[in-house]
């Protein structure tokens, strides 16, 4: 008899989704109720996850197709909390576009369920199932503002390209299955001890698929358009939550079945990392739309996370996880600011709209200042420590080239972050924005800004949690 307690979070969240769907069908005007219940569901799931799995060292379930270990429980918790915060700060935005509908929270819940399955997967089939569940929910979310041309375009683009990458991924899976005779990660790992070309092909196809999901260069083309076109609250979701899941799968895929083939994939990851860091930094310079800029900056940040993965050491994995956690917080803070740029029920998302913000909104600009310097990786803010751990792991493996390219691209990236700060602080002011933001929005901005600002006082806490993760 399997221990069902360990998958209780997944079971709970799927039952809740079904319940909410039924509720939505039978009750009129239920969007507000369903919204609140979904928030509650996410919280409860997070609590169950902490209770049931947080202290579990490593257990596999269902013919070892599901694995529960420190990494999966930590990543699930981050995913759930991230989804909770996204949902909670997006209600005002959705209302102002009149898209405050029952589908929105339910779709978010389903994609979260898909991500949780991905995070725990120890089998190619389970992994693919989770991936598709989350992707399908995300396609719909991208088009959620369906009266807007751009939103529909974003959804369609995302769907077509993502389906293509899923196809590649699946093809890679089938090659690997054909070669090793199993879809289970551990079995694959024990079967592999040769350097067959076919196998390399399989790995490459899967890596392409995964790189697409986390939008690493050169598979990033969809990101700017989709980020710009989707409703802002969905963009926030895109930049935070799916990346956590995809990164976990990335880690597990590289380090469980294919650790022995590190020579084959290490160069690919290094290339992806360098290309993403440089391209993200350079391409962001010319942007005028904040959401597009964030898309490019997120490409750059993914590059740093991949640099940690390329090391082939536990240190590197841990540093990547620390990086993505801090990045999620910074993104949350940045988007909270973006959602505050509202005047007469219209949201502003061009960089020029920030012009002279510091005159009328000193606190908002101060938070932006902290967030942007942190994203640029300037000490003593949290973003610096994130990069610091990555480079510490990279240099431990004597990968100096990667470290130096990475640091040089932080200098390039600093330029466009400084440009935003310049516009906020040095330029002429514009009209005032509204100040009647929801309590949650204010809370999430204050909370995340303080975390970023004061992270340096207690840097050990996060490391303590992450350092329990032991994949190799």
């Amino acid at each position, binding site marked *: 008899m399997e221990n069902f307690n360990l998958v209780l979070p997944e079971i709970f969240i799927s039952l809740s989704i079904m319940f909410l769907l039924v509720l939505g069908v039978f009750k009129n005007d239920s969007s507000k109720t369903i919204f609140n219940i979904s928030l509650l569901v996410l919280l409860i799931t997070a609590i169950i996850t902490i209770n049931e799995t947080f202290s579990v060292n490593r257990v596999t379930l269902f013919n070892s197709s599901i694995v529960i270990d420190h990494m999966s429980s930590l990543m699930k918790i981050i995913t759930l909390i991230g989804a909770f915060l996204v949902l909670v700060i997006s209600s005002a935005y959705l209302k102002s576009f009149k898209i405050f509908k029952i589908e929105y929270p339910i779709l978010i819940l389903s994609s979260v369920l898909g991500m949780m399955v991905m995070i725990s997967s120890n089998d190619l089939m389970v992994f693919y199932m989770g991936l598709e569940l989350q992707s399908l929910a995300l396609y719909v979310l991208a088009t959620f503002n369906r009266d807007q041309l751009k939103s529909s375009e974003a959804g369609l683009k995302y769907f077509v390209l993502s389906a293509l990458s899923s196809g590649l991924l699946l093809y890679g899976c089938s090659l690997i299955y054909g070669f090793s005779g199993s879809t289970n990660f551990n079995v694959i790992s024990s079967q592999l001890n040769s350097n067959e070309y076919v196998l390399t092909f399989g790995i490459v196809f899967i890596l392409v698929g995964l790189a697409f999901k986390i939008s690493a260069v050169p598979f990033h083309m969809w990101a700017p358009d989709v980020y710009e076109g989707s409703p802002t609250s969905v963009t926030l979701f895109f930049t935070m939550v799916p990346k956590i899941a995809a990164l976990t799968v990335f880690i597990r895929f590289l380090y469980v079945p294919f650790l022995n083939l590190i020579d084959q994939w290490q160069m690919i990851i290094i290339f992806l990392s360098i290309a993403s860091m440089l391209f993200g930094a350079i391409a962001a310079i010319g942007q005028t739309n904040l959401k597009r800029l964030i898309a490019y900056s997120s490409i750059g940040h993914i590059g740093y996370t991949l640099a940690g993965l390329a090391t082939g050491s536990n240190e590197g994995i841990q540093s990547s996880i620390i990086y993505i956690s801090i990045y999620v917080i910074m993104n949350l803070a940045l988007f909270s600011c973006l959602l505050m740029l509202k005047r007469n029920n219209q949201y502003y998302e061009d960089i020029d709209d920030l012009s002279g913000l510091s005159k009328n909104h*000193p606190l908002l600009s101060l938070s932006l*200042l902290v967030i942007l*310097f942190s994203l640029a990786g*300037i*000490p*003593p803010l949290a973003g*610096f420590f994130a990069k*610091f751990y990555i*480079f*510490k792991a990279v*240099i*431990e493996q004597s990968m*100096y080239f990667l*470290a*130096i390219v990475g*640091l*040089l691209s*932080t*200098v390039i990236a*600093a*330029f466009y972050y*400084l440009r935003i*700060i*310049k516009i906020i*602080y*040095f330029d002429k002011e514009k009209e005032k924005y509204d100040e009647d933001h929801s309590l949650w929005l204010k809370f999430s901005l204050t909370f995340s800004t303080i975390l970023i600002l004061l992270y*340096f006082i207690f*840097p*050990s806490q996060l*490391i*303590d949690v992450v350092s329990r993760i032991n994949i190799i």
Partner: protein
Amino acid sequence: MNFPILSSLILLPTIGALFLFFTKDKDGNNLTAKYVSLFTSVVNFLISIYLWVSFDQSTSNFQFIEERTWIEGFINYKVGVDGISILFIILTTFITPLCIVSVNNSIKTRLRDFLIAILIMESFMIGVFCALDLVVFYLFFEAGLIPMFLIIGIWGGPKRVYSAFKFFLYTLLGSVLMLVAIISIYWISGTTDVIKLYELGIDAKYQNLLWLAFFSSFAVKTPMWPVHTWLPDAHVEAPTAGSVLLAAILLKMAGYGFIRFSLGLFPIASEIFTPLIYALSVIAIILTSLIALMQEDMKKLIAYSSVAHMGFVTLGIFTIQQQGIEGSIIQMISHGLVSAALFLCVGVVYDRMHSRMISTYGGIVSIIPKYSILFMLFTLAALGLPGTSGFIGEFLILMGVFKDNFLVAVLASLGVILGAAYMLWLYKRVVFGKLVNVELKSMIDLNKSEYFILACLAVPTLFFGFYPDPLINTIEVSVKDLISMYDLNVMVK
């Protein structure tokens, strides 16, 4: 361990800034903000004086050490001072209150925010000078970019955006390689604790690359030729108080870094690269002095003179002679006082006439005599007249260089002559001559606060010029031990 005096020095300005943050920002004359910040910085100055008084000059060991685990098993928050760093801390705490007094006249908008930036800057600068862990040092060293960027960018002159960006990106680019080096040191030696690294030493085969990585950061910050171009821009556009902080303290971080890290951690590499430093320093001294001669803008002229003076400093440091290094430290302190005063002098006339062009002025000696006298004093100190602190520094440095390399010493001495030329010519064109511009007649002489600031700077300039013993006594033992440690390392190799 008793009272954590160094941490309170670092923290106090930040606490003051935090307090200011919660006060209301008023336009115009915000007295609360001024008094709070002035009070904080003066208290900080008094604490640092207490630190100097209770400092034991007979040992080169680090004193007032505080150590706390910061990141488990990796970085410790560790601060402490020795004879080399203590003077820079006092310089910082001495200059900051003067900057705060000087904002009276020059900063018209968002005074509260400006004072917050200055106070936070002070925290970071003190942190740089007492950090005893490489990562902690880097943290403070880089963090200072944020307030300085804002000071130049928000309160600066017409081309402020360009200058702020140039300042920020130049220094950041220089520093990232240092970060790589620091992490590499951690993996090579297993610690980033400076005291432990002094004892352990770093394997000779890594030293060259590490030295170059640190050099790239310090050279930009010093600034050395040919990466000095950010400095004139930053100085010209920064508000007076910003220029003062930049010239008096920020530039000293790099000189301090050269002594503490380049010499202390990488002696073998320092020996190898000494000719490089000599060459760059001599070029800096002569070239930038010539450039300074041609300047039309007073601030730019003084900025270029800073580059030349810092050329002397780097020259002195790498003589690895007792006199040379002591001279460099005294030169840095003296330059901190004198360049601060000169920028304030420019600020005084700028506030009245809103022009920094030399051609605007001329013949103002009869209109504002008090100003002319003090300006003269600092001009003479800048060119190193005996009896001013500038002389002691330059003289000791040249003595050190003569022992080491005759040719370099001769070339550097040429720089002294050029220095006298551009400073005196500047003074002549601004203060003496015929009064052509009639608008100058309405100029008012120094007001009380300006007079007070310049007098505060004049006193130590003259005092240490006649009686440098307090400075030399403080640094002597530390420098001596640094040199003997250096020689030992080089000999072993």
